[in-house]
């Protein structure tokens, strides 16, 4: 599990630390830094999977374009991640980068245990280069490093897009991409290789969308497609003709029923997007079960989501410890505070009669320094 992430010099994250729970909900205004947090999360994941070349690309994906602008004190970009393994051991992974000659360069990469034991640093870089998270076979601490690398390398940040979710795909495309592209291939593969999991996904879908009779998969030309069959229909409606919220829901279910290793972490932007408020509670239940117990016998996965919906936040009344308020300073920089701490600080209590989404909507838990006139 990722316990904490500190970011320096990345987009609005001049110096920002966030602590995570098994399920963490980020709330904040547009431009506060929620997306920057998820992107930095994704960059750490990409780096763990393939080093600098995987984490950065040509402009506008180069480090130079992504680092904080307009702040003279910030020169490079750095990430510090606290990881806890299933055995309870904690580790700190640090990565510092800068751009030289239009290319991102690693200045520091280090993995230490909580008690200060250095597992690897740049001096112990593997012969392949890349990242210390891919140690040479037989090198010191190899097994421990690989276990940590598995957690970091599992990180994926999704921005589900119904127009990608609905697409027909090559049947060889069996995973769901960051935007949701590949759902058809994922479902076809799941139905073929793991029919029991496919059935559980369908049952779960039916719990949230009771009119669902079946999830149908079919081929046409070189592609596979998916759709939903409802009562009275002898053929499924193709995904392209389903509502935005239904496509989002199936996309989300595919993420949660993907085969992931224990300790994996995913993030989903705008979790409420496209959902009628009557679905918010069911979506929250789904996420909660996936994060704390594991869905239908699967391993639990760590989940981070963002939302702007007061209705969704209202459903978190009894679990405000999972909410993080992301606040942008008027003069730049992003601060992340646990909502319960903010409530105590700003309102003197965490127990209010007013629904928590309504309290958040007032804006009182964000900046209190701006003045009019």
């Amino acid at each position, binding site marked *: 599990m990722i316990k904490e992430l500190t970011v320096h010099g990345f987009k609005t994250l001049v110096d920002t630390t966030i602590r995570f729970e098994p399920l963490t909900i980020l709330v904040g205004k547009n431009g506060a830094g929620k997306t920057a947090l998820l992107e930095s999360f994704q960059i750490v994941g990409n780096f763990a999977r393939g080093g600098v070349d995987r984490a950065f690309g040509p402009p506008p994906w180069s480090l130079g374009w992504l680092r904080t602008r307009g702040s003279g004190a910030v020169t490079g970009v750095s990430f510090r991640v606290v990881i806890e393994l299933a055995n309870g051991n904690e580790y700190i992974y640090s990565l510092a980068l800068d751009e030289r000659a239009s290319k991102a360069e690693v200045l520091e990469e280090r993995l230490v245990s909580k008690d200060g034991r250095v597992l690897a640093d740049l001096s112990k870089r593997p012969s392949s280069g890349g990242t210390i998270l891919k140690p040479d076979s037989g090198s010191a601490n190899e097994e421990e490093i690989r276990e940590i690398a598995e957690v970091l390398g599992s990180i994926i940040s999704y921005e589900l897009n119904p127009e990608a979710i609905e697409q027909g795909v090559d049947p060889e495309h069996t995973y769901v991409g960051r935007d949701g592209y590949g759902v058809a291939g994922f479902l076809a593969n799941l139905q073929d290789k793991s029919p029991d999991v496919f059935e559980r996904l369908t049952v779960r879908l039916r719990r949230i969308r009771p009119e669902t009779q079946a999830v149908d998969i079919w081929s046409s030309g070189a592609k596979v497609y998916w759709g939903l069959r409802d009562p009275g229909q002898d053929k499924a409606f193709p995904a392209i003709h389903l509502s935005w919220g239904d496509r989002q829901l199936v996309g989300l279910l595919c993420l949660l029923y993907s085969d992931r290793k224990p300790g994996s972490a995913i993030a989903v932007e705008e979790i409420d997007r496209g959902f009628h408020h009557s679905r918010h509670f069911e979506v929250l239940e789904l996420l909660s079960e996936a994060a704390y117990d594991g869905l239908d016998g699967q391993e639990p996965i760590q989940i981070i989501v963002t939302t702007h919906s*007061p209705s969704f936040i209202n459903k978190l009344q009894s679990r405000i410890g999972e909410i993080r308020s992301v606040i942008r300073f008027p003069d730049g920089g992003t601060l992340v505070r646990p909502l319960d701490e903010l409530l105590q*600080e*700003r*309102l*003197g*209590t965490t127990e*209010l*009669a*007013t629904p928590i989404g*309504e*309290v958040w*909507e*007032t*804006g*009182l838990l964000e900046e*209190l*320094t*701006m*003045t*009019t*006139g």
Partner: protein
Amino acid sequence: MRILLVTEGASDEPVAARLIRHALPDASVLAKRLPARGFAVVAREVEIWVRAAHFGHFDLLVIHFDLDDSISATFEDVSESKRWQEVRDAADKVLESLPQGGRVDALCVVLMSPCQSTEAWLAWGIENENGRAWEKSHRHILKTKLFGNPPRGLTRKAEDMAEKLIGQMAVNERWPQSLRNFMDHLRRGM
């Protein structure tokens, strides 16, 4: 002086902010809006606004809500309204329950409670008549008259009308009574 202002709607905020700055030129105002219109929302949110102003070390909290027709047309003071009393009592109750928390002076809470609504004040600002007469006009009719049906350009129009209102206050003695009460309370910090 730091003031936290909370209003019901898009047209009320610029009017309230300008009236506050007219009465207290050195004030800095942080304006926030209720998540939804309606007295029920005001009543249930008094607690969080008072708490936020208290713990945020504001000097003054101004809470806006319309009296609608909760008061007789011949009222002398807005405190005759049950709505006004309900909000006042709720605010006082919360204030009494809060620890001093390092504050030098206690928070002052002022209620901006136009009769029947802010539109009565704005209409008076535009047309040189007896302010009390506008307080007897139905708020929905006035809203349509000032902002159209459906209403549009609320903030922009309200900003212009607020300037006219302040101009009218300087030359016309026949203020709407609820406006007079508000400005008195604002200056006295009650």
